[in-house]
């Protein structure tokens, strides 16, 4: 099949970008979307033009490196699928596809389809962990965890941190990402001691990174390659209310991640 690709090209964070149109010919159905881009890049290299930069690594949908918008839809719009898992079987001859990077203020473009997602790491630094220094913890079976809790924790922990939820959200909110980590850790008995602190700190970090807020569009859930449900955002909000009612209002202050609230905010 032959395709027309309109791809966002941008040299670096400091220069303006633009769409460039490429024709890709004789694509077979048994390759993946990224393999189709590989062959476009081989052609570009042959012609002495710079190949299209895109992130990818495991190519099996688990590392979270890849991701861009195809015709405005993060990861291309097949349920539970990252772009690296998109097969060319899903496309047809003559398709015109527009490829552009995640669009969010918190994710500045680095080059072409590559963006900087370090804001996610900083949200994790604010509290996305259970403090358990390596040493002699209790025996693994000493902590009984109901299967339902373990399953919920797993469903949430399946997040791969790709950023599609942010790209799909009209408000560029990172609430699905943040709530997934909170649900993972807050569902487990081991996560209870730090539950309040974790919740308030991660929410504060999210705000500090200039992500927007959820207004219940549900686009994030629709594009999430791991099908993390919107329900987790509700859990996060409940945990936040619980935290505030228990009079834990101060986020953990971490230099460069979460700042002390200003006077204005404290009021």
């Amino acid at each position, binding site marked *: 099949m032959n395709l027309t690709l309109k791809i966002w090209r941008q040299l670096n964070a400091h220069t303006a970008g633009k769409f460039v149109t490429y024709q890709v010919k004789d694509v077979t159905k*048994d390759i993946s979307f990224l393999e189709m881009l590989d062959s476009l890049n081989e052609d570009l290299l042959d012609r002495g033009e710079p190949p299209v930069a895109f992130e990818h690594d495991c190519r099996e949908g688990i590392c979270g*490196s890849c991701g861009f918008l195809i015709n405005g839809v993060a990861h291309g719009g097949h349920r539970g699928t990252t772009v690296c898992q998109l097969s060319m079987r899903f496309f047809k001859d003559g398709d015109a596809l527009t490829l552009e990077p995640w669009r969010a203020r918190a994710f500045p473009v680095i080059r072409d389809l590559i963006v900087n997602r370090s804001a996610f790491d900083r949200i994790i630094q604010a509290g996305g*962990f259970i403090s358990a220094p390596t040493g002699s*913890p209790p025996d693994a079976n000493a902590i009984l965890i109901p299967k339902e809790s373990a399953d919920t924790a797993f469903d949430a922990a399946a997040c791969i941190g790709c950023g599609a939820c942010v790209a799909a959200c009209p408000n560029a909110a990172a609430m699905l990402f943040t709530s997934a980590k909170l649900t993972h850790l807050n569902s487990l008995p081991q996560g209870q001691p730090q539950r309040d602190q974790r919740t308030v700190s991660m929410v504060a970090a999210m705000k500090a990174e200039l992500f927007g807020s959820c207004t219940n569009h549900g686009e994030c859930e629709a594009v999430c390659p791991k099908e993390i449900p919107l329900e987790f955002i509700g859990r996060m909000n409940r945990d936040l209310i619980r935290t505030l009612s228990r009079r834990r209002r101060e986020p953990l202050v971490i230099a460069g991640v979460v700042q002390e609230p200003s006077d204005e905010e404290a009021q």
Partner: protein
Amino acid sequence: MLDARIPPGPIEQNWDKCRFDMKLVNPANRRKHSIIVVGSGLAGAAAAATLGQQGYRVQCFSYHDTPRRAHSIAAQGGINAAKNYRNDGDSIFRLFYDTVKGGDFRSREANVYRLATVSLNIIDQCVAQGVPFAREYGGLLDTRSFGGVQVQRTFYARGQTGQQLLLGAYQALEEQLAAGTVTMHIRSELLDVVIVDGRARGIVTRDLVTGRITSHAADVVVLATGGYSNVFYLSTNAKACNCTAIWRAHRRGALFANPCFTQIHPTCIPLSSEHQSKLTLMSESLRNDGRVWVPKKKGETRAPEDIPENERDYYLERRYPSFGNLVPRDVASRNAKEVCDEGRGVGPSGQGVYLDFADAIQRLGLPTVREKYGNLFDIYERITGEDAYAVPMRIYPAPHYTMGGLWVDYHLMSTISELFVAGEANFSDHGANRLGASALMQGLADGYFVLPATVPDYLATTKLEPLDTSHPTFAAAKDDVGQRIEKLLEVKGNRSPDSFHKELGKLMWDECGMARSEAGLRKALARIPELREEFWHNLRIVGGGEELNQSLEKANRISDFLELAELMCIDALDRKESCGGHFRVESQTPEGEAKRDDANFSYSAAWEWKGLDQAPVLHKEPLTFEYVHLAQRSYK
């Protein structure tokens, strides 16, 4: 020359004795010591986080945009631990025994025993961190069985165990970043190790966004940079996995052990097109319930469901009745190759065998099978467009893991003083074949428990000269790296980096893959230098060095694969016996199984770099087996 520094005394007491004999660093003095950790996978992230918790100043490097992308994340099946929660006869000694036997008696007993001992602590540690392992309804941990063993000792988190363990280590690492004990350098690729007065005192890295080349000094350098299966181009490894860090350390004097010991994993999705960029693993755990078969007739054209039971050959169950479909990986892979070579392979290419779940679905019910393996069936469906609940999966072996790596002693120190190597990047624990669910165990054992004990001992007992990057050796190493990058950019030839990589990979798969012969290896040894020569004269990279340039990154990694490949073939040629994943066609039993030659080859082969056009020099570390009786492996 090679002293493995194994503590004397009974094997059960080795590690305790070693830990007691090691010197400690006073908590107040720890912050005066700096440690570089390269790599942020299971071994690297675990080591960086733990050393940070202890109070050392740690700098951690990753070529990814965040530590959580490391390829450990893709491990599916599980992690072994000798907990004996099932009361099915497991013990530390049995895990040790299984691992030595599974490795076909080419690993170091003391290291393996330590690994088995520490396995208990790993599970405890991970649960404390909140890793959501699979649970029974009573709230206790669930386990399953894996290849090469007869107990259920594998802990798992659906088909995403590696992801969950890595996120546990990543979260511990991020906590230390916030605490300020660890500094993370993302999108930074190691391009050289700096050796001052015979000690590894720093590294040179390239910033992958700006192209800036920087050097970093520290008291100790740890490499946890993974394996080199991508030398085959098509493998189950992530696209960026490479040998550059360990290879450049090798060129600086670290011996490279058993480079030819590579693992070809039996259950991967078969190759379907020449444009394919990688192969996808289907977890070995599938062999718990799936049955492997091919048609009895050559050139069978009927669909699998139309082939009656008596015309199917469940060849693993037939040949190995006691282990059946759960034979070790090397045995399963070789058997798949054999039946395909006989012309009984399935699928469009004839390079595939069936992995059939019909019986399991009938026995357990669809919901149970879905619960256990759902995500794997989904992956399969996405790639092949086939529903494996309805038709059998097709699988074929693919390069997956490298047992070889930099030689390390019991303390995980390489032959360069102060250069420690952990995880898949070292060679020590798996011998000639790794058992399933042991890679995660080893990565975390090295990172959480071994290095945090051995690195401080080194700091406490060694008088280190203060040093920073103004030392002339750093400038020289930086220049070397800069010149190599320049040289790559200046070739301006006609072939893309990938085209060289594909050609090298095909050659290695044909001649140094599942079966190796003297003639084939000699052919490869003649071709590799030619290909390398062409690479340096006909490579094409577009763009410059001072920008984000993915073709340059690739070319740089391939330039190292082109050197490593030669050493792999030299090692494979030199080891005339068959053992584990290394199958020399000249050395097999009448039944076609790998035939070891313990009289002549009971050693680890550690190779010393002598220069590009010089033959490497072989050093042997003799292997002795006091606790596990040397025997021809049998899984019959």
